[in-house]
């Protein structure tokens, strides 16, 4: 079973204490939302979990293996994949080449048909197979986002962290991403979704982590978090004021 254990993580950038004793666990194919106002430390937490940034203290274990001091590529191979807040496709490489990178990094051979077959299945899911030989830079912003998600399928990690997957995405394409998240989760993968779009978070997640200026102020089911006065004060209150609960419910129907 998938097991991520984050214990007392601290990260400082100069005098800015970005993560303060953050601890939580992920067990099994959980669907977790990670929310918090800007500057809460969400992306830093992602960077620390993925090995791009080393914590000042604390530990991270993935499936029993300590990963907090490993470089990114080893964390990826251990089973943690992530997307970036700003889409980072390999722009001057073809769509297929973008998908080959993680598969080959895992040691698969690209001389046979297996990797190509797998890549084509991913593209078919996103109905992007006709774009396979185009450079990624020729794709629209939304398509590049899908390509980034497709690369994660090729990496096939146990835990996937999606950093703002719905930012700037058309509602139609949002459906594709919802579908993707549900399918991947059904296959037994745990997911941590960072988003400011509460509708999507409440529609998809069964558990929420709330960060506020580096503190993990809540870790509970969405209903409990929604009514938590500390969270409301720190973050949700403002959102509730702006959008109301009706919109959240509407998201749940998609």
């Amino acid at each position, binding site marked *: 079973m998938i097991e991520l254990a984050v214990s007392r993580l601290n990260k400082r950038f100069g005098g800015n204490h970005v993560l303060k004793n953050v601890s939580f666990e992920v067990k099994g194919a959980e669907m977790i939302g990670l929310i918090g106002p800007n500057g809460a430390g969400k992306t830093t937490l992602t960077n620390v979990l993925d090995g791009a940034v080393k914590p000042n203290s604390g530990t991270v274990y993935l499936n029993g293996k300590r990963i907090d001091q490993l470089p990114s590529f080893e964390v990826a191979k251990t089973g943690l994949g992530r997307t970036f807040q700003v889409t980072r496709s390999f722009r001057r490489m073809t769509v297929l080449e973008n998908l080959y990178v993680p598969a080959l990094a895992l040691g698969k051979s690209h001389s046979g048909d297996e990797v190509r077959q797998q890549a084509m299945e991913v593209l078919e*899911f*996103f*109905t992007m197979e*006709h*774009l396979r*030989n185009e450079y990624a830079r020729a794709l629209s912003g939304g398509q590049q986002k899908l390509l980034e998600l497709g690369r994660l399928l090729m990496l096939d990690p146990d835990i996937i962290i999606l950093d703002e997957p719905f930012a700037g995405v058309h509602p139609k394409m949002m459906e594709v991403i919802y579908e993707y998240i549900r399918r991947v989760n059904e296959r037994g993968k745990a997911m941590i979704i960072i988003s400011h779009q509460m509708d999507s978070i409440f529609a998809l997640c069964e558990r929420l982590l709330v960060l506020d200026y580096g503190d993990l102020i809540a870790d509970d089911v969405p209903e409990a978090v929604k009514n938590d006065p500390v969270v409301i004060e720190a973050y949700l209150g403002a959102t509730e004021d702006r959008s109301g609960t009706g919109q959240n419910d509407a998201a749940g129907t998609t």
Partner: protein
Amino acid sequence: MTFFVAFPFVYTGGNYDYIMHICIVGFFYAILASSWSMLAGYAGQFSFGHMAFMGVGAYTTALFCHYFFISPEPTGICTEFALGGNYLIIKNPIGVTSTTLTQDCLAQAMEKWDGAVAITRMPVWLGVIFGSLVGGIFGLLIGLLVLRLRAAYLALFTLGFSEILRATISAEIQITRGQAGIELPSLFENGITIAGHVFSKTDKIPPYFVMFFLLLGCLVILYWLSRSRFGLFVRALREDQDAAAALGVNTTRYKVLVFVITSMMAALAGAVQAHYVTIITPNNLMILQMSLVVAMAVIAGVENFVAAAIGAILIEFTLEMLRTSFTIGDVTIDMTLWRLVFFGVVLMLTLRFARNGLLATLIDYFRRGHVAAETVARHKERGPSDSVPSEAGRQGAPS
């Protein structure tokens, strides 16, 4: 390829040696430009140190051939080690002044022996191999040092390294003979007989084929690398180092590897070229020389090593052909100087209007010209919906 193999045998025009010389130099630049295109174009490591690695190869073999000898007898005055039944003699450095030229320990010992003892030079091929290996070691060190540097910082760092190396070689007159340069034995010091034909050490055909096959070997290796996972990973590294690492690519390993491999190629070319022209001076490491390699690769196409190689040969030829001065009315145009202006203008126009390079754009047109039409055709086949999973797609779970 057939053209270049046949060229020395079918060329009957004038200035045979000069034309062959241009070819050899063209091949030399082609190795540098194509290996630099792998480093800068494929891997995105915009290094200005490539000519320095060339210099490392050239100076390694130069110093090796200049200072190391094999003698059946010990000199008693040089640094020497027993080696099998012989002695490895290391000559003492004496600098460049003419009064001291005969003051090295080996010259003194030979004077004493009065021709009774035959001294053997180190084989050129061994020096070339050492040159390439030392180039690789320097590439490894620089690769490790620039791991965290990107774009302009990497360019500045390698520029600094290049200038430091050149200044060090210039300053260490005692050992490197400074600006005077070190003379090297010819590639085939005693001539060579191929298929019954005797070539002297000044004949152009043997070095022509040595440099040509060296270029061919480098291109084959670069082709193999570009088609392998190495090629894919270094391009991913160029595009986005962090994203590549997050997808499982050991970016450190590939960044260092690409430096080592391309440095070894540059050093190999430098070592062979130094033995061909039989002298190496610090001026060969000048930034102007590096700019020439960069310009050759950029004009032809820095993201395509074949284009860079062909471009280097063509540009070398063009630059030589443009040497012919001419007069317009009373004004004489000295093309030995103006040709570089012409070259600079071509570079600027290429950067402005064909950023991928002239040859690479052409190659891309033939290789990828059909892609857009195919995409449109497939799109029409599939129907108008855009980027929303089709029913068929939705049925199949992502795998």
